[in-house]
Every structure is written in C-alpha cells, then in structure tokens.
C-alpha cells in the first residue's frame, strides 16, 4: 500500500484511499455500474436499430427466418435466465445480510443456470450450421436473400449476448471466491451488487431477444 500520511486505522479494510467513507465508495461503484450499463444499452442498440429497419423492410424474410428457430429451446432458455436472475438477486441479498452459505449456494446456482443457457445455445447454433443458415458463402441459396440479413443479425445479437454470458460467468467465479473467503457483509457488498446488476442486464437483453427473434408470426 501507499506509505501514506493518511491513517487507515479505524477505517474499513476495503475502503480505498481516495474515498472518504464506505458509503461514498458504494455509491460511486453503483453509479459507475449504471453508467456502464448505459453504454451496454447503446452497444446493443446499434444492432436493434439494424433489426428494426430490416424487419420493417423485409417482414416476409423475418417471418421465414423466425420459423427456422426452435421456439421451445428459446423459451427454455428464457426461463433458465429468469431463474438465474432470481438466484442472483438472492445472492445479493445474502451478501447484504452477511449470510455466507446462502451467497455461495445462490452464486453456484446462478452459474449453473448460466452454463445451461450456453449449452442450449450451443445446440441451437449447431443446428443452424447443419441447415446452411449461417450467412456467407454457405448460406442456403434457395432462400430469399433478405433472410441472410435476418440470420446475420440473429448471430450477431445472440452471439454478443452469449459472449456477455461468458464474461458474466467469469465475474461470478470471482465473486464466488470472495464469498467463499467471507469478504462480503452488510458493510461491504458492492462487488456482489454490481456483478448482480451486470447479470440482470444480460437477462434483460434476452427478454427482448426472445420475442423479437423466436416468436414472429407463430400463429401463421
């Protein structure tokens, strides 16, 4: 640490030197996380913009593309993610009340749901490769060209979302380590809280992706 003139005595060990107190530190990290999430919203926003435009221009292609997706798997994944959001919220709560075991269990459950999601996603992707639905040179030539737009966006949106899940799992592993060590308690739980914010955000993205990609024109 710094050979500081400042006296850390009496301060919480997790208080960084440039903050006045734990309250300021927590508020700063939560605000920081929200600001970061705004950038994430804008990041996905570019893709949603392209989606919105092309869906307006080529409704038929979107219908045909959507019919190639497995609605059951998509729905399953939605439920899986909602479960993970619940366990995540419970994990944060456990940290807030300083319950170590509950933290550990809930974080492991969250990671379990996250992994399930990715495994399901893997099977979905594999099927797309088999059916020549991956845009580019091998795209099924009998399909209307605009369907390539649908699948380009499908892969970019779900792919980047899945990447966020992978990052999320990494963060969870790190939080799990802290929880195991018993770092988090009523006074210091910011890492769990902001990890939770991230995880919920990724869930929200999927809440929109599911109807937009999987559920177009199911009545037809």
């Amino acid at each position: 640490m710094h050979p500081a003139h400042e006296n850390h005595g009496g301060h919480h060990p997790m208080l960084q030197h440039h903050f006045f107190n734990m309250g300021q530190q927590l508020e700063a990290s939560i605000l920081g996380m929200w600001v970061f999430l705004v950038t994430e919203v804008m990041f996905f926003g570019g893709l949603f913009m392209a989606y919105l435009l092309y869906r307006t221009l080529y409704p038929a292609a979107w219908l045909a593309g959507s019919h190639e997706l497995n609605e059951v798997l998509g729905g399953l994944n939605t439920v899986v993610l909602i479960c993970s959001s619940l366990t995540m919220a419970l994990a944060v709560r456990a940290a807030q009340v300083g319950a170590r075991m509950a933290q550990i269990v809930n974080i492991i459950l969250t990671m379990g749901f996250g992994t399930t999601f990715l495994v399901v996603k893997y099977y979905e992707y594999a099927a797309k490769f088999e059916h020549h639905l991956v845009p580019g040179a091998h795209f099924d030539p009998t399909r209307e060209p605009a369907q390539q737009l649908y699948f380009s966006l499908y892969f970019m949106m779900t792919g980047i979302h899945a990447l966020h899940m992978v990052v999320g799992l990494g963060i969870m592993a790190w939080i799990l380590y802290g929880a195991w060590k018993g770092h988090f308690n009523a006074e210091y739980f910011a890492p769990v809280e902001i990890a939770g914010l991230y995880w919920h955000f990724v869930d929200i993205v999927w809440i929109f992706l599911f109807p937009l990609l999987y559920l177009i024109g199911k009545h037809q």
Partner: protein
Amino acid sequence: MSHVSSKGLYYTIFISLIILTGVTVAIARVDLGAWNTPIALAVAAVKATLVILFFMGVRNNTPLTKVVAASGFLWLIILFGITMGDYLTRSWLGIPGR
C-alpha cells in the same frame, strides 16, 4: 443504499416473470394482426421494468440512478426515431433518392 428487500418480494417478481413469459408465448399464437409485435414488446418492456425496479434495486435507489437508468433507453429512442423517420418518409416526395 443498504436497503434489503424481502425474499418474498423476489419470489413474487420471479413468478410474475415466468407468467409473463408464458403470456408472450401464448399471445404469439393468437393472430392480432399488426398488434402482435407491439404487444410482445410491451410484455417484454414490462418484464424488463420489473427486473430493473426490483431485482436491480432501482426502486430504492437515488433519483440520479433512476435518471441514468432511463437515459440509455431515451437515447435509443433518439437513434430509432430519427433513423426510422428517414426511412419512412423516403417515398413521400416521389422522387427516387430524395
């Protein structure tokens, strides 16, 4: 912000989310004409709001956090609104490319 919500609240939200997922899937099978997509999006928006308010704790947070949380969506509306404004008015003049 050391507000601790009750577990019961979290379970309630969880169940609402599951139900709403069911609602989205069910509604997709009914033919509502042009309304299918807006309703699906509205349900998604409700779900997202629930997550943001309760799971993410914005309900108990400072006004600043609320503004920040809203600003991303507001800016998306700018992006979507003006860009679509361009595409939807392109044929009005009846002159290609104007």
